């Protein structure tokens, strides 16, 4: 009886589910199926379209492709790690140190830059960092530099830009998970003889783990799939995998090759997240809460 009721398709269920299903099918499932089909098509010697794995083979044969791929993955993991290191003290300060009446204000400060589009913020960095930019100007005025140096278009700046772009997506889940941490747990650990390091690693981080993992997943995926920041701040040296995909679609008009790269990126991000969840012994269902 109860089982029947649970699975009955009622009018409210249809009303609420339809938009979600339409969204999923029309905008995600269908395009992906078409991309998958394209990635498996190639031309034979006579110019006829055939089914083939040659697009995927090209990726493994050509070192520039898979080197870029590995580089993107490693840097994305690095960016995720650095974002965590930067966001953790910020989240801890907002939730545990500062007086409660300032918490909202500080959260606003944290959110405010994200009201502006990523493009504008990246241009902001470029105005600061470029050869004729603000920082160079001041350094020369102060006599620290004799001539301007180019601070854009290298890996360090690119990673800094990516960390900056994804800060919020780490800070918000961390703030919410740290808010649920009872202050008396920290005090109890302190009372039982723990120092700050022990409290951080035995109490705060284990409690914050679901937030850390969900923040890391979001940051990692956003970084891996980011096109704008690596391209503008990293320039031609960025060698970000999204750039390869873009080139295949737009520059070479090789949609089949581009689709194959797209699927490889999807497989990569899924794999890294799966390994991450296994390593931290977290379940996706718990993290997603």
């Amino acid at each position, binding site marked *: 009886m109860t089982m029947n009721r649970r699975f009955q398709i009622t009018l409210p269920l249809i009303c609420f589910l339809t938009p979600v299903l339409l969204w999923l099918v029309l905008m995600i499932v269908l395009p992906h199926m078409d991309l998958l089909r394209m990635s498996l098509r190639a031309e034979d010697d006579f110019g006829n379209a055939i089914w083939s794995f040659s697009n995927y083979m090209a990726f493994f044969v050509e070192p520039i492709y898979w080197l870029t791929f590995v580089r993107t993955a490693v840097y994305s993991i690095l960016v995720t790690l650095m974002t965590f290191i930067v966001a953790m003290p910020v989240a801890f300060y907002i939730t545990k140190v500062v007086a409660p009446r300032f918490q909202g204000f500080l959260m606003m400060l944290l959110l405010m830059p994200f009201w502006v589009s990523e493009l504008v913020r990246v241009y902001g960095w470029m105005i600061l960092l470029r050869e004729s930019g603000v920082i160079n100007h001041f350094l020369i005025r102060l006599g620290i530099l004799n001539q301007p140096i180019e601070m854009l278009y290298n890996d360090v700046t690119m990673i800094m830009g990516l960390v900056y772009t994804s800060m919020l997506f780490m800070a918000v889940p961390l703030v919410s998970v740290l808010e649920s941490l009872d202050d008396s747990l920290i005090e109890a650990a*302190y009372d*039982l003889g723990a120092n700050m390091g022990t409290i951080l690693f035995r109490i705060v981080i284990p409690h914050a783990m679901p937030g850390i993992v969900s923040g890391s997943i979001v940051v990692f995926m956003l970084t891996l799939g980011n096109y704008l920041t690596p391209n503008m701040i990293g320039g031609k040296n960025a060698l970000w995998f999204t750039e390869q995909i873009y080139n295949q679609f737009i520059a070479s008009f090789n949609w089949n090759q581009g689709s194959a790269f797209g699927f490889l990126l999807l497989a990569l991000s899924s794999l890294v997240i799966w390994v991450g969840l296994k390593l931290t012994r977290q379940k996706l269902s718990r993290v997603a809460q």
Partner: protein
Amino acid sequence: MQIDLSVQGVSKTFGDFIAVDDVSFEVPQGEFFSILGPSGCGKTTLLRMIAGFTEPSRGKILIREEDMAGVPPNRRPVNLIFQHLALFPMMTVAQNIAFGLQRRKEKRSDIQRKITRILERVDLPGFEDKAIDQLSGGQKQRVAIARCLVLDPAVLLLDEPLGALDLKLREQMKVELKKLQAQVGTTFVYITHDQSEALVMSDHVAVMNQGHFEQVDTPQNLYHHPQTSFVARFVGDNNTWSGVVRRCETETVEIETVSGQHFRTRATASLSPGTAVELFLRPEAMIIQPAAEIPYLNRFEVIVKSLLFDGANSRLLANPLNDDTELLIALPQNRQFDHIRRDDRIEVAWDEQSGICFASPE
């Protein structure tokens, strides 16, 4: 006798607000000492200063004769049991108890042995691998106590740990806690707003009000010989009258209450005719329908408003004639007074020696 905890003239101010005002007391080794006060009286602040989470604005705290000024909580030989226990939910029972021992870098085998022993002591043998959320309220309580006692602190501080339990369990834990303290012999400093907890468990109780101690005494003395009107009012139930002293004799004074009743009661220091006073009387000091020949009684008639049956703790709620002051009168359950009904007019009385009066604050 060794003094485990000595608090000397300690004050704590937050801006203009004085949370703790020049408090001094000493707790000898092995004593169960309670600080009893209404919420907001500063008792938690005092406890947090002893634990080291806040520094006193003035005064000294000595633990086993060592000055604790500037010593952080993790280096003090005291442990605190928090109001909501603060067990670590991400660890098992054994890991919780081991936490403090590991911080002291004790040997693994020693830690193992101590955990087993302390769990037996708190009556939870074999609970090592249980998760915290598998425990009942009373079991969590005992794990929290074990986690602190295993470190063998000079003083164990308890911040109303029974507050979250239901009544039945609270009654049971009260007795258990008292027994455990007697067994282990650790000095306990217990703070609470529940007078029954303080009276049942403690060797000495300090009654705290607005940042200062009103009286530090044994539970019996607090109940029978309160030294201030606050203590009389806060500890135990009372009937209260406001009035004015009319006549002073060597042993007794005569008081006229606001509603015009005249009572004679034991004299305390510095009462003179004309002083405004408050008179306190325990419900059990009221005698219902006293025999006519008993001397030195304040006799008057009341009208019964309701019967509050509560087993051994049953009371009558009554008004004096032509007066709507509510009086609580203990109703002994020896069947002698079963005939009393609502709206009955009965005579009650109390002995001159059982009332206590204090000059009322302006």
